[in-house]
């Protein structure tokens, strides 16, 4: 039925305020004083307003004022025309079109488009049709309308992307689009099993039916599921989603430059890694591509971003800068040199202030093994380095003067220490879940390390003891300074106060410690489609701010296993939304869509402008 309805009709009571100008008009109708005047002949020569004309103007003013107040009440009551959606009251069809990575097999998306077009054509003429595309999110591509050509054109324009299938989000969005109307949601999809993996149910009102138009999935799919650089190798992981072994050739490339190719066979329903030794340092985005004639196209390529600096850069500061002062640390780190590993450089403490900014700027972790010659500028540089997010490892051995590092200004660490008498001790992690010790699964081989001398650390209250000697005193303390991390080892790292460098646990301890210290400067470089806001729903290497990141297809999307329509429907939860609430939601959305209140306020403003102009003339 045609008619104007109001979302908040209570505000219409505000129209009573229109009585105010009427009352004022009536009470002050003769408000103008009568002034006896003699020199009327001069006044008559001026084109003054006659009383009758003024009366007309007063009535116009009154009408404008009343109208302004009525329009304000009208706008606040949030009007909407119920008739505008009356034609849709018979119900609507919302077509959800799957545009995820799992419909990118050859010919698959053409089927999707065709099925969607069929659904649109076959929808009852009395019903409006809307089209939404969905993958990890759902987007409206054709709003509810009786115009079928609009919906068909929208479907023809659709393209699959790299997003993951998420049915729940799509169904929820489609239900919102129906806005409480009875109707039908038709999902045109491959029914990929992982589409329900998000863990949330699809919420569909009771008066909405859900139908599925399933398109076939490929029987086999070969996907590149990860890509990384370890040491001097580029490694790509392949997954074979088929019952037979899949021979494949993985092509590695950095931009337009082909790095090499690796041929391998991926076992049935299994994975394999393709490892390519890199001739040089790889920097920036690179890809691994596999040819897959039958499976999904979207997961045939994987993107990654190499930092190109050859790994975590560790700068060892010793008293002399002599390689012998940092021999064991250097040996431990050079085992994993290059990308994904470590870079190492040793420097004398006295030379730290003069180290060029370009080199120091690339340092991730500074290991202080000796402090002789470390002047205030050097300490200041270290303190600024830590505050800016750098990692600092201090070996409280015989070459490090605690007073030098803790004195202000330019205090490098807060923890002080004293060298204590020789006593053979072992150490064990205080919290085995700490990233430095997680690898050791408790004390493990660490307990074999024998410390003949050590430092007694005076741990500040805001520091954390992460390892203790067998006598309970702190062995490793962590401080947080600014954005950076500081670890203090209460002994040395150069085989003088302990036999740690000779123990098998030394190398992993050093690696984990350095990685942990460098973690605050490391940044994530890989995301899946949909994780980075504002980016297109396609895989690729993109620049976010100043850094490059790789966006890839969610590996779960590569699994072509499907479910039945019944299983799909079984995953749908019914919204027990009361009808009144649904109607309310519907009305609100209808009102939102029409936005008549804006016109009401605009008219009110125009009325007030007119009132101002007329009132100015009337005095």
């Amino acid at each position, binding site marked *: 039925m045609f008619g104007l309805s109001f979302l908040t009709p209570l505000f219409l009571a505000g129209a009573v305020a229109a009585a105010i100008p009427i009352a004022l008009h009536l009470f002050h109708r003769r408000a103008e004083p009568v002034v006896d005047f003699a020199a009327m002949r001069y*006044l008559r020569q001026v084109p003054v307003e006659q009383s009758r004309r003024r009366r007309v103007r007063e009535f116009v003013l009154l009408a404008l004022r009343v109208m302004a107040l009525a329009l304000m009440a009208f706008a606040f009551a949030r009007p909407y025309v119920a008739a505008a959606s009356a034609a849709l009251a018979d119900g609507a069809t919302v077509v959800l079109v799957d545009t995820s990575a799992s419909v990118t097999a050859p010919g698959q998306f053409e089927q999707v488009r065709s099925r969607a077009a069929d659904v649109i054509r076959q929808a009852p003429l009395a019903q409006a049709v809307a089209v939404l595309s969905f993958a990890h999110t759902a987007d409206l591509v054709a709003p509810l309308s009786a115009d079928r050509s609009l919906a068909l054109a929208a479907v023809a324009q659709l393209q699959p992307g790299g997003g993951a299938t998420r049915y729940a989000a799509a169904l929820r969005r489609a239900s919102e689009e129906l806005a409480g109307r009875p109707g039908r949601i038709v999902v045109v999809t491959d029914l990929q099993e992982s589409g329900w993996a998000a863990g949330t149910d699809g919420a569909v009102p009771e008066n909405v039916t859900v139908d599925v138009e399933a398109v076939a999935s490929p029987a086999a799919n070969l996907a590149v599921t990860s890509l990384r650089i370890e040491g001097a190798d580029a490694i790509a992981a392949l997954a074979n989603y088929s019952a037979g072994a899949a021979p494949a050739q993985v092509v590695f490339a950095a931009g337009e430059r082909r790095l090499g190719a690796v041929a391998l066979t991926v076992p049935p329903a299994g994975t394999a890694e393709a490892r390519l030794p890199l001739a040089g340092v790889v920097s920036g985005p690179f890809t691994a591509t596999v040819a897959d004639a039958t499976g999904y196209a979207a997961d045939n390529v994987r993107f990654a971003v190499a930092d190109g600096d050859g790994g975590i850069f560790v700068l060892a500061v010793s008293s002399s800068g002599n390689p012998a002062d940092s021999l064991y640390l250097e040996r431990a780190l050079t085992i994993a040199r290059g990308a994904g590993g470590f870079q190492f450089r040793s420097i004398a403490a006295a030379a730290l202030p003069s180290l060029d900014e370009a080199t120091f700027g690339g340092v991730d972790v500074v290991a202080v093994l000796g402090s002789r010659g470390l002047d205030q500028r050097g300490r200041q540089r270290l303190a600024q380095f830590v505050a800016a997010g750098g990692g600092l490892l201090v070996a409280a051995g015989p070459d490090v003067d605690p007073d030098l590092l803790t004195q202000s200004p330019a205090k490098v660490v807060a923890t002080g220490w004293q060298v204590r008498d020789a006593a053979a001790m072992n150490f064990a992690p205080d919290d085995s879940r700490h990233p430095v010790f997680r690898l050791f699964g408790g004390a493990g081989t660490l307990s074999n390390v024998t410390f003949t001398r050590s430092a007694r650390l005076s741990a500040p209250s805001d520091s954390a003891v992460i390892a203790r000697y067998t006598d309970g005193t702190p062995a490793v303390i962590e401080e947080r300074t600014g954005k950076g991390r500081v670890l203090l080892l209460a002994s040395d790292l150069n085989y003088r106060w302990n036999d740690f460098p000779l123990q098998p646990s030394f190398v992993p301890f050093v690696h984990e410690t350095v990685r942990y210290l460098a973690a605050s400067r490391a940044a994530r470089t890989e995301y899946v489609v949909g994780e980075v806001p504002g980016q297109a729903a396609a895989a690729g290497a993109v620049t976010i701010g100043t850094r490059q990141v790789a966006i890839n297809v969610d590996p779960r999307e590569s699994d072509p296993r499907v479910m039945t329509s019944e299983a799909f429907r079984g995953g749908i939860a019914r919204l027990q939304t009361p009808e009144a609430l649904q109607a309310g939601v519907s009305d609100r959305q209808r009102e939102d869509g029409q936005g008549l209140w804006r016109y009401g306020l605009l008219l009110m403003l125009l009325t007030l402008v007119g009132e101002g102009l007329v009132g100015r003339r009337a005095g």
Partner: protein
Amino acid sequence: MNVGERRGASELRFLDPAILSRLGTLELKARTVVEGFLSGLHRSPFKGFSVEFAEYRQYLPGDPLTTLDWKVYARSDRLYVKKFEEETNVECHLLLDVSASMAYGSGEVTKLRYGSMLAAALAFLMQRQRDAVGLTTFDDRIVSMMPPSARPSHLHALLVALDTVAVGSRTDVTTPLQLLAEGLGKRGVVVFISDLLDEPERVIDGLRHFRFRGSDVIVFHLLDPAERTFPFDRASRFRDMESGDELMAVPSVVRARYLDSLNATLDRYRRELGSSGIDYAVVDTSTPLDFALMSYLSTRGRGR
């Protein structure tokens, strides 16, 4: 209070001693430069028809023989000269507008009251000069008329008439001026006191008649301060005091054009009356009466 006391008080109201003293001073100053104004603040240039005996004194060599009183000489055998105070033959006509618009006053003094005081002051001045003073009040007709006379008792009657003058109806100078001009026996001085709220053509034509007949004409154009500045601030219905017609006006909107219209009319009077040899003075009723007279005399003095 008896009648005599009340009348005396009324006369004093018009003849404010302060005003009179100032006028007297002004008379001495103006006597040498002004001829003919209100019998000139100096002796009349015209020989009088009637004489009034003042005193006898002994004949001195050089006295005109015509002034000898032969009858006394016959009786007493002594030569005496008769001294006479001459009485001028100038007739001064005070024409006072008493139309309804003259009853307007934004302050304590209406234009009619101000005009009455002005006429009284002038009449007193004339009487001191032994000139004959007459009073005519008019609106669209002649309301009252007192022929000119120089008798002291006439001044008293004239002042009483001014004190009891009543507001008339509409302003229409055509008929009264025409009748007065025709009835004017000989040349004299015509003092026209009015707010001139009539058609300027009719006012100017009417006054020119007097001028053509040889009379000096002086016009005091009375304006209330509110008429000069139009100080109203809120929209009002302005009611014509003569016709009762109402006119709605927003002062802030019409003020400038009202003042333009007023000033244009004043300029026209000043220009056209001046070209006809008619003295014209705009008098603001908020200014002191003596100030208005002095202002006028000063203007006249500069003009001659």
